């Protein structure tokens, strides 16, 4: 038994090259239990073939479909329409902030990905090096062969939500600092200079918006705090090492 359909207005940010940005409204019928991305994809399939948006996996493993939904950063593939609007209402969908807009809802991930590469944020982690919430009851000796993906899906929601990122395009941003924390200064001391800087760790003023919007349990805010501790520890070490 499928629930009653809702009639909503999808209000989508449109922007073609050389044109001013504006909103366009698409009235449509939806199943409240389908995801925001399903509705966006239907606009492309049946109403406007020129709509540009990023998406790939449709189950929160790739991180491509991050958008602002009614002013909040969401991974649209796992956000049920029911959770963000109601029957008869408008649902506003915009591209992520603090990223250059390619067109409509699609943003350019270039700078972000290049920073993730610089800090060596790893996409694949050996089980022994990654925290797992529900580990099997036993790990045996050859477990080191089991490798799993790290949990940051590079969606950029945290960068879009971060008030500090809005003040400087040079700020590394939550995911990048989280990637550096995951690497750890112990493993890669070269990161110290990069993160111990004005546009690194010290621009963050602990708004915790990143952790609030992160769809992948990465908790960048906690990691930033932890990385600060690592940096301070390292500074102390250097202080005492001096003759």
């Amino acid at each position, binding site marked *: 038994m*499928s629930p009653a359909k809702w009639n909503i207005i999808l209000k989508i940010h449109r922007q*073609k*090259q*050389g044109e001013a940005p504006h909103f366009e409204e698409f009235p449509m019928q939806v199943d409240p239990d*389908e*995801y925001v991305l*399903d509705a966006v*994809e*239907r606009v*492309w*399939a*049946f109403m406007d*073939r*020129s*709509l*540009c*948006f*990023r*998406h*790939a*996996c*449709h*189950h*929160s*493993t*790739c*991180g*491509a479909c991050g958008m602002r939904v009614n002013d909040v950063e969401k991974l649209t*593939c*796992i956000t049920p329409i029911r959770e963000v609007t109601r029957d008869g209402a408008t649902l506003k969908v915009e591209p992520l902030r603090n990223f250059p807009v*390619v*067109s409509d809802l*699609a943003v*350019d*991930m*270039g700078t*972000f*990905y*290049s920073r*993730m*590469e610089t800090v060596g944020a790893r*996409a*694949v982690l050996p*089980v022994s090096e990654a925290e*797992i*919430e*529900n580990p*099997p*009851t*036993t790990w*045996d000796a050859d477990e080191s*062969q*089991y*490798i*799993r*993906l790290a*949990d940051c*899906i590079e969606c950029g929601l945290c960068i879009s939500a971060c008030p500090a990122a809005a003040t400087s395009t040079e700020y590394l941003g939550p995911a990048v600092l989280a990637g550096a924390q995951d690497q750890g200064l112990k493993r890669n001391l070269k990161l110290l200079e990069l993160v111990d800087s004005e546009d690194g760790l010290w621009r963050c003023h602990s708004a915790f918006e990143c952790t609030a919007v992160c769809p*992948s*349990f990465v908790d960048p805010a906690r990691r930033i705090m932890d990385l600060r501790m690592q940096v301070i520890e390292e500074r102390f070490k250097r202080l005492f090492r001096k003759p």
Partner: protein
Amino acid sequence: MSKPHAIIIGAGFTGTATAHDLALRGFDVTVIERGDICHGTSGRTHGLLHSGGRYAVKDQESAIECITENTILRRIVPQVIEPNGGLFIALDESDLAYAEQFIESCEECHIPLEEIKPQEALRREPHINPRVLTAFMIPDGTFDPLRLALAFAGTAKRNGAKFRTYTEVKKLITDGKGNITGVNLLDLKSGKSAELYADIVVNATGAWAGEIVETVGVNVPVKPTPGVMVAFEQRFVQRTVNRLNKPGDGDIVLPQRRMVVVGTTSFEVDSLDYVPVLEDHVKLMIERGAQLIPAIAGAKIRGKYMATRPLIGGGEGRSVARTFKCYDHKEMHNLDGLVTITGGKATTLRAMAEKTADVVCTKLGINAPCVTAETPLLSYRQYYLQPNEDFS
């Protein structure tokens, strides 16, 4: 002599892998994609790096392709693979009866296989059905779909391939003598149209392959066959888990990040651009998934989604061969300058690209061997580090 120019339509697994191969063979490559990378089927793939075990009994050609490519991908693109292995588990008499054929077929296809006792299977994977009667370990794995395509695309870009995303091919251009000479494009970012010419056009549009060649009045036997998958919010297993029986609906569970994903089904559709996620298929996934991992019955659903297989040839659903096919339209329809590559699987993307590039090189009289099996791919992030092409 200037480099030969190849246009590739579609930036899914097949298009990105073909771009990588042709770039290494000295081509000037332009990839045209109407969305971003993985706008079509590829992004929504289940994510099983097949060992071939699933096909060993019924379709040995596919099974051998899988184990060969599985081994190569582990070598050239470990960055996107969880090489954890997989279990085939028997839960009833019919599964046990299948075991004999399974062992024999895997041996014939050279798929390494290890039988393990139920207690051992449960020790390795405590969440699988405790009624497990026997289990086999095989070298299955999982991959991150978008990042697999990005690794091929990013490496191709570093080797000179150009990508025009958010750009739709409207039709193929002919020279009036039955040869394809290029494509008509619409840049969706700007609304501008353009023509682009090449020595060869490769149609790598997967399930949409028929739509492209229809613009010049011919067809290819592609049978779009969607399937539904469901992701749950807990990582119950570290390895892929398959039902030890002939392939059916909802008989594969695999771990991805902090989830498990159950798949899949097989049905037919009329419109390809939007396929609804059928609620009864979702129910079936929960039911079948819970047979393999009982905790799935009470687990929170994280995502429900679907993708459309580009199966080739006639036949019904699961009986259609899972191998791939490269069509030279000169041979098929006396249309020169066009090759269509479709069918296959994510796991066989590199082999599909090799085959296609071989056909292209032969057509253009170019002698350049394939080196992709020995060439490690660069970081998938390379794709976004280099800007894309725009119309100037």
